[in-house]
């Protein structure tokens, strides 16, 4: 008998797989921009939205999307100005977000178990309508990140050059900010606010141990995210562990395994005698266009 005959487990699995695929597809741009922890910060802000949702008894997820989007746009505008005080502004936003969330949840009638569901994820309580939300938003994030890859790569790689290429730099930056907010909010259901960045960043970190290019890194990170999500939910089901934490533990385990294998492979290759690299051919260089 399969565990996934239980409908709630199946929903949990599908939700996790979608998030496992979408989170690294977005996360690679954040890593490229050296904003790997931004997802964490936006997660904190999303928590205020959750608190507001619980307090006013509207959908916490929708309120979280709104709060996270506002937070993400604010962070982007601060980043755009490039002020040193941006650092402090971010800190205010992050801690204000989490403290506001906890206070608002306290004011509402809901229990701390409810807050825990958002802090650590509650994959197995994914309802049918939750799953639809996750699928629609996850697909939108995936399509945007894949279809706009050349433009997003250019903006994250060299923003001034992107501007001189006539790209809508500000629009693309805001798109990244908003998709980060959306991904954070749907991932919050799966792994919880405290572990969101792990799912966006760890598969990318793992993939780039062995890849040479951006596209290959993106593809490998998505496969790794999918694997960690699927195996994590399975592990949670058989070992009765928390699904969100299991997904992250597996993602980090893959990182360690791949790092060790890559280091071993490099050592083996270095032990082998390599042919002398050829000197640069000057004549060819002077060939012109």
């Amino acid at each position: 008998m399969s565990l996934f005959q239980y409908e709630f487990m199946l929903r949990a699995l599908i939700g996790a797989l979608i998030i496992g695929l979408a989170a690294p597809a977005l996360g690679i741009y954040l890593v490229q921009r050296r904003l790997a922890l931004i997802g964490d910060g936006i997660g904190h802000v999303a928590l205020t939205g959750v608190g507001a949702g619980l307090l006013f008894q509207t959908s916490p997820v929708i309120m979280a999307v709104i709060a996270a989007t506002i937070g993400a746009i604010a962070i982007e505008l601060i980043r755009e100005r490039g002020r040193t005080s941006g650092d402090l502004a971010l800190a205010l936003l992050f801690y204000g977000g989490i403290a506001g969330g906890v206070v608002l949840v306290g004011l509402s009638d809901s229990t701390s178990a409810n807050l825990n569901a958002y802090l650590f994820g509650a994959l197995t309580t994914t309802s049918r309508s939750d799953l639809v939300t996750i699928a629609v938003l996850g697909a939108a994030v995936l399509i945007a990140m894949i279809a706009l890859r050349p433009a997003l790569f250019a903006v994250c790689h060299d923003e001034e050059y992107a501007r001189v290429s006539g790209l809508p730099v500000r629009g693309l930056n805001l798109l990244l900010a908003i998709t980060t907010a959306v991904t954070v909010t749907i991932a919050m259901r799966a792994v919880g606010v405290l572990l969101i960045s792990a799912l966006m960043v760890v598969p990318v970190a793992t993939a780039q141990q062995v890849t040479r290019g951006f596209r290959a890194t993106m593809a490998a990170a998505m496969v790794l995210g999918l694997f960690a999500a699927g195996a994590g939910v399975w592990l949670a089901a058989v070992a009765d562990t928390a699904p969100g934490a299991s997904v992250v533990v597996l993602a980090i385990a893959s990182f360690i395994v791949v790092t060790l294998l890559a280091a071993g492979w490099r050592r083996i290759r270095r032990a082998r005698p390599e042919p002398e690299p050829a000197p640069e051919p000057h004549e060819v260089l002077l060939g012109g266009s």
Partner: protein
Amino acid sequence: MTPEVISLTHGVVGYDGRPVLRDVSLTVTAGEVVAILGANGSGKSTLVRAVLGLVPLSAGAVTLFGQQVRRFRQWQRVGYVPQRLGAGSGVPATVAEVVASGRLARRGILRPPGRADREAVASALRAVGLADRAKDPVATLSGGQQQRTLIARALAGRPELLILDEPTAGVDTASQEAFAGALRGFAADGGTVLLVAHELGPLRPLISRAVVVHHGVVAHDGAVPDPAGHHAAPDHDHVHPHGPEEPAGLWSTT
């Protein structure tokens, strides 16, 4: 009359109210190869970035191909090589992937790359002598090769105007010569060039006019000034180390 490609009139630029360019006028017409010279910190990069609309003018006006830079939209006509890549990327990228960014101005953001794009990338890589490194991660290249990658990125868009900020600073001799070759080809095809240089080296014969920026104004606009001092020795092998500290340059007037 040859059409004006770049026109900067009485440009004033400052950062945080501190003026860097006080009153700079510069005109570049089609087919010219103009070098901007000046000491470190004299505002050469600022001038180039103002021409591209990357820093705002507090007074004066810039036009590109006869159009106010703020309303300029034909970016496929311009290729830009920045002084150095910003903070750099945390994710590996291949040489070909970086050069492919040079096609975006032509292609737009939604159309996926096609055959013409791949061919332009390949020919730009050949022009700078990096065809065999296309699939290598940029991070594994030498400083000079990375600079050549950025030049290939600008060439890949098949621009009419190339704007280069110190393309040969800190670059090994092989890369300098590769670059001179690529630039010669570009100029021979009728391209217009504005380049910032610390010293001209093998580029010298290509330059049709030199503009020296000093104390926020144009101190010289005309023939390429003669090199002076020990740098002028013909056998002088000047290879800068990469880094923020550059030796006082040929054009430094301090």
